[in-house]
């Protein structure tokens, strides 16, 4: 049992990185517009299936990893402009309900296009083996996943803190009206912000397809842990989403090792404990989202 502890812990971190990146996308969209994007999982699945199709058509995996999320972003922009935007001015649960409907439609569409069962989507041969980390062997693909996700998170952090657009985005989260009054086109901000969230979801979707399998519901299966991640990390905090994701990943992998039957429930227990101690979540900010 104990000898499995190391690999399992690492597995937990990989899983946690997934949750973190999905939660980051959710948080970005939620923080700026108050939209809980229930279709987030569908965008992940979409990118996963697109990458699967591309690889079948002999497009290298590396290109698919970039192109598939970009196509998902394109779909996302269309959805944002036509369906989500009219709802920004309304009670937030309307956009929740609308995106829920979208995810139902998407799930059925995936079923019609790619079949009701999962499709085998294996990582490219170059990443298929196992690598030695010195103290243990670990699948190369999972190490690759961690590296890609870390790069994505770092790029996002740089974008938000070091570029003018990123600064505007963060300012808009604090006071949208003020940033609009100062001459920023908030509609563009909303669209770019939404696209960023979808792009992160897309990358996670492609990588998750290779690791956890690809089926019409595979993206939605990651959605619930991502919600829990957002709550644990604290709504309004991107840093919280990262820490929350890792915590959830470790909690799930550890309970899978020791009490397999409780593996799904463990994250909810963690969430309940965190909320009892810190009602706002670990890094949630005072006053945001009640």
């Amino acid at each position, binding site marked *: 049992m104990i000898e499995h502890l190391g690999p399992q812990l690492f597995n937990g971190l990989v899983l946690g990185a997934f949750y973190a990146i999905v939660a980051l996308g959710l948080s970005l969209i939620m923080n700026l517009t108050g939209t*809980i994007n229930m279709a987030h999982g569908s965008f992940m699945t979409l990118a996963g299936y697109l990458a699967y199709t591309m690889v079948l058509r002999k497009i290298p995996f590396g290109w698919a990893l970039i192109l598939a999320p970009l196509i998902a972003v394109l779909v996302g922009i269309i959805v944002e402009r036509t369906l989500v935007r009219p*709802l920004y001015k309304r009670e937030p649960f309307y956009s929740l309900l609308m995106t829920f409907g979208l995810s*139902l439609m998407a799930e059925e569409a995936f079923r019609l296009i790619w079949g009701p069962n999962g499709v085998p989507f294996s990582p490219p041969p170059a990443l298929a083996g196992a690598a030695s980390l010195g103290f243990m062997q670990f699948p190369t693909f999972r190490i690759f996943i961690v590296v890609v996700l870390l790069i994505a998170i770092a790029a996002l952090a740089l974008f938000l803190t070091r570029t003018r657009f990123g600064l505007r985005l963060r300012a808009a989260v604090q006071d949208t009206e003020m940033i609009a009054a100062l001459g920023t086109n908030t509609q563009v901000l909303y669209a770019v912000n939404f696209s960023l969230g979808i792009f992160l979801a897309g990358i996670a979707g492609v990588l998750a397809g290779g690791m956890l399998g690809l089926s019409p519901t595979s993206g939605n299966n990651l959605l619930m842990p991502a919600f829990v991640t957002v709550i644990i990390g604290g709504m309004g905090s991107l840093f919280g989403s990262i820490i929350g994701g890792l915590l959830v990943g470790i909690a799930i992998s550890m309970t899978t090792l020791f009490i397999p039957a409780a593996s799904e429930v463990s994250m909810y227990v963690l969430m309940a404990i965190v909320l009892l101690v810190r009602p706002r979540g670990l890094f949630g900010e005072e006053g945001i989202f009640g």
Partner: protein
Amino acid sequence: MTARKELLLSAAVVVLFAFGPWISPLMHLDVSIVSGVLVIAIAVMSVNLLLGYTGLPAFGNAAYFGLGSYGAALSVKYFQVHFAEAIVIGTVAGLLGGLILAPFLLRRRGIYFGLLSIAFGQVFYFIAYRYTDVTGGEDGMQVPRPLFVLANAHATVSDFGFYYVALAFFVIAVIAFRTIVRSPFGRTLIAIRQNEPRVRYLGLNTDRFIFVALLIASTMAGLSGALSGLLINFAFPLQLDWHQSGYFVLSMILGGAGTVWGSLVGAFIYVIGNDIISTITSWWQIFLGALFVACVLFFPRGILGTLQALGRAPQAFGDDDVDANAAFDPNAAGEAGRGV
């Protein structure tokens, strides 16, 4: 609308439903489908109390609904309880679920409340899904409908008989619901939706009001779940899933948020519509999803809410609180996006 007119209209609806077993064959519907409408309407009312009246995005009511269903099914399977006892046990199971979750939920408002409801509601789904030995896991558990026992008389409950059980519970639920939302307590809930800080300044502990509202809602959802489980003789994890919660919310919006009878109208459209669509096509999920999208974008007031706004509605069928629908009016909404 006078109280007298309201009473007459309500009575007319109930009388119409009393002839349900004879009307439904004319519409090519099984009587148990119409029972389903009445049963689901109770669950939709529970969402309406929280979302329509109090303004809390209740996206986790399926948890209480499913607890009711599993409560009834498990007690029949393992303790051989009778029909009436199973209903009581299921209802209490829903209430207990509410008691457990309410302390967590009532700390937050707005979308945070919605997120917490979804996440915490999902706990029960995974418990039912995982503890296969007891609950039958993913496949659910089939339980024969228990006997109705009164004194020494034993009787089976036919689908015909069940219809009137459902109708009786529905009538009780509607009367209770209307009494609650017209009471000072219900008025306070509406006030909380409109402006919670102001209610607090008036010296009322809004957390306590929301706590009670959550308990009432979980009890109603539990009752609905227990009846639903006994109606289809089946308890399965998807009854606890957040998708189910979403269907309840959709039904509430379709019927008209913040209206007493909107829950019945919404449940009617949802249950019957689902039944018809799923017999016509296997793509029903696309239609259901499109219904969500269309309803939110073009029809946010729902049927009774729209009628009321047009001024033609029998007010009794809506709520005499005109502002109830203003909060759901896309043009009237003020502060956008943010939860509170």
